[in-house]
């Protein structure tokens, strides 16, 4: 198996190509089978690979062929496999397989069934290439590949203009980050002469000292790419809008895998970031700021998917925080557990939306606990993990992050406290969601509970979200070991208790209504603050006024082609002369004659001057 890891991304790619070419001629069952089975085989192969890796801890480096060779620049189509890659591959293929299975029921009625699975398979292939790439250029290929698939899937129901707009927004906003990242790659290549990640990190450590400016610039550019892809401040605005896509897509791309690509990228190039402590601080600050901002915003949202979207942004903020404080393995661990419970939540919301005829507003749901038991328990477990209640998977990963953040000198306690506030908010908004949707009075009547193809993935993910915290992710070889010291016990106790407080608050406010916040919410300050949070801190508004409208203004200005005006002037001059000359063409004989005589006079003058000089 270890000789042929390239098969793993190849299978979904082949399936995708087949679906694109022959999708319209296949039966629905065959399409679904092809789409699910291809990812399933990849998942199985990954499992085999994982078992092998657990036994021999062998890093695999596999080069297929040289992609291109120009003046010493020879990136290969080559794969690199270690513990980090294994974690990412497991998440992608495992969660991906479950989501594919879920999709077969969710998308059953959709006329573009084949197109959907073609995109989804292609996404899995691109994402696998991204995490398996041995050099940054191949990684960039996968990076752009998932971007394209994200664009295609967000705009999957392109018949509605808003969906197309959301897709474009997702594509363009991430493109800003990608451009910066491409610049970072170019900088790294010109400075180090290679883009092979391992060789590059080695060369960087030999060339630069800690705190040099070039690695700082390179890291900042890479951060830009990661921030765009992972929807962190200030490029996060595309993710809530990207919820326009089908819900399983949101689960796979915008929760479990693609949006965590930025985290993976930073973790993969951590050797560089260790050379630039400032860049790491930037990562941590971006992470915690995003986390808090998104958590506050999630508190106020009413659309179930937008709540989850902001929660995703917030959780990725935690991962960034982990990376920023050097808790690499904790960050990746949180990435994995987050993939489990967030996919679970998204699929659960997908099930609700599916059974409630595309109802997104949580206040129009309510009382679903008894009628959709599978979904209810999925949501309970998912929310518990999201809120990091003890013994759930989210608890272990988030706890690690917060503890390691606390140990950071100078900034540490501050980051820890902000992280705690975020955790409190997370607990409140996740259980607000649960209480509003599943308890209280029923507002709508669902058709039925989910079918088995939805129930199985939900159950498996429930299981994973519960026990995911006990997994030992094999990344010890990849990252530098932490010093192993533990902060004081009270820090740990506080970290544990905060989500419980959040749960209590949510219970009091949204379940038994002992704690009435209506007065607070209706006061002027409360209202304006609520609206401010609802609008995502007005960042969309700000960007609209700061970038979009000036750009439209510029475009409108350029639409009238001011530069062409110069050439238009030449044209106008020519036309004027032409007009004059054609006016001279009056059709009147005597006018012609007079002109001829005038010309004759000039000619004779010239001739006399030139030949004889008589007139001089």
């Amino acid at each position: 198996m270890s000789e042929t890891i390239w098969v793993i991304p190849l299978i979904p790619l082949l399936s995708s190509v087949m679906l694109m070419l022959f999708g319209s001629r296949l039966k629905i069952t065959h399409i679904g089978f092809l789409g699910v089975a291809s990812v399933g085989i990849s998942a199985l192969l990954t499992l085999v690979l994982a078992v092998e890796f657990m036994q021999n801890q062998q890093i695999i480096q596999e080069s297929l062929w040289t992609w291109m060779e120009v003046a010493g620049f020879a990136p290969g189509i080559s794969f690199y496999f270690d513990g980090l890659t294994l974690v990412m591959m497991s998440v992608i293929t495992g969660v991906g397989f479950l989501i594919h299975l879920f999709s077969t029921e969710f998308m059953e009625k959709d006329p573009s069934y084949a197109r959907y699975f073609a995109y989804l398979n292609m996404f899995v292939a691109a994402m696998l290439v991204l995490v398996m790439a041995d050099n940054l250029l191949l990684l960039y290929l996968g990076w752009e590949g998932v971007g394209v698939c994200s664009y295609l899937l967000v705009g999957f129901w392109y018949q509605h203009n808003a969906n197309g707009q959301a897709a474009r927004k997702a594509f363009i906003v991430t493109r800003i980050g990608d451009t910066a990242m491409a610049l970072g790659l170019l900088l790294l290549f010109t400075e180090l002469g290679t883009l092979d990640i391992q060789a590059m990190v080695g060369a960087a450590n030999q060339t630069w000292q800690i705190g040099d400016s070039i690695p700082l610039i390179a890291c900042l550019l890479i951060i830009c790419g990661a921030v765009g892809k992972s929807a962190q401040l200030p490029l996060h605005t595309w993710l809530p809008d990207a919820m326009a896509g089908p819900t399983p897509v949101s689960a796979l791309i915008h929760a479990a895998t693609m949006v965590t690509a930025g985290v993976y990228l930073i973790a993969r190039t951590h050797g560089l970031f260790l050379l630039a402590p400032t860049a790491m601080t930037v990562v941590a600050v971006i992470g915690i700021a995003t986390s808090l901002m998104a958590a506050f915003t999630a508190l106020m949202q009413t659309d179930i998917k937008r709540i989850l979207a902001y929660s995703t942004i917030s959780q990725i903020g935690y991962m960034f925080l982990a990376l920023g404080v050097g808790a690499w393995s904790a960050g990746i661990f949180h990435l994995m557990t987050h993939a489990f419970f967030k996919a679970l939540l998204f699929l659960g919301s997908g099930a609700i939306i599916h059974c409630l005829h595309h109802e997104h507003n949580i206040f129009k749901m309510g009382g679903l606990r008894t009628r959709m038991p599978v979904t209810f328990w999925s949501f309970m477990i998912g929310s518990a993990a999201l809120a990091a209640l003890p013994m759930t998977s989210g608890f272990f990963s988030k706890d690690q992050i917060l503890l390691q953040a606390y140990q950071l000198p100078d900034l540490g306690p501050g980051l820890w406290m902000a992280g705690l506030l975020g955790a409190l908010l997370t607990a409140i908004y996740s259980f607000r969601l649960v209480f509003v949707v599943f308890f209280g009075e029923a507002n709508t009547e669902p058709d039925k509970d989910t079918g088995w193809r939805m129930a199985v993935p939900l159950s498996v993910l429930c299981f994973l979200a519960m026990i995911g915290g006990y997994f030992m992710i094999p990344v010890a070889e990849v990252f530098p070991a932490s010093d192993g010291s533990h902060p004081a016990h009270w820090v740990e106790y506080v970290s544990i208790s905060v989500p419980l407080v959040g749960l209590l608050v949510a219970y009091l406010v949204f379940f038994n209504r002992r704690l009435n916040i209506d007065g607070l919410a209706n006061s002027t300050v409360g209202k304006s603050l609520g609206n401010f949070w609802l609008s995502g801190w007005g960042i969309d508004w700000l960007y609209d006024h700061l970038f979009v409208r000036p750009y439209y203004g510029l475009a409108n200005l350029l639409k009238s082609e001011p530069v062409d005006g110069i050439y238009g002037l030449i044209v106008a001059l020519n036309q004027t002369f032409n007009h004059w000359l054609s006016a001279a063409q009056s059709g009147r004989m005597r006018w012609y004659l007079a002109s001829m005589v005038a010309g004759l006079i000039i000619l004779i003058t010239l001739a006399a001057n030139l030949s004889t000089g008589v007139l001089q």
Partner: protein
Amino acid sequence: MLEIVFFYIAATVALIATVMAMTRANAIHALIYLIVSLLAVAVIFFLIGAPFAAALEIVIYAGAIMVLFVFVIMMLNLGEKGDKQERQWLKPGIWAGPAILSVILLVELLIVIGDVKGPVSVSAVSAKEVGLSLFGPYVLAVEIAAMLLLAGLVGSFHLGRRYLERDHIEKGSSQ
């Protein structure tokens, strides 16, 4: 000396006759003045020793070509109305611009020929000499002239025939 006097008289007649021809309103009157002018030029030809040219000037120019004009004017049958029209067109305002142009050109020509010195040749050039050079070195020019005349013949026949035919057809259709 007599020749010189004759020359100036002939030149004066030619110029006056031409001016008159150009300013008449009636086409026939103008034509007669033009014939006078041509005859005067023929006299000049005779005086400067080109008798053959003088003869041709009278026979072909003043004779054949001018008769053509007369025929056409007769066919057109212009009458009094045409004369009035012509007089209206001959207002001084119309004269001014062309006159200035012509005077400028004339002055230029005069300046250019100003330094031409000497009298014309003592001996006359006889018709024989002209004939010899016509069918000697200039034979190609003669042939080209023949072709030109043929083309003029065909062209005028074509134009005139269509004129007549259409007239005929219109008459036929109106009946």
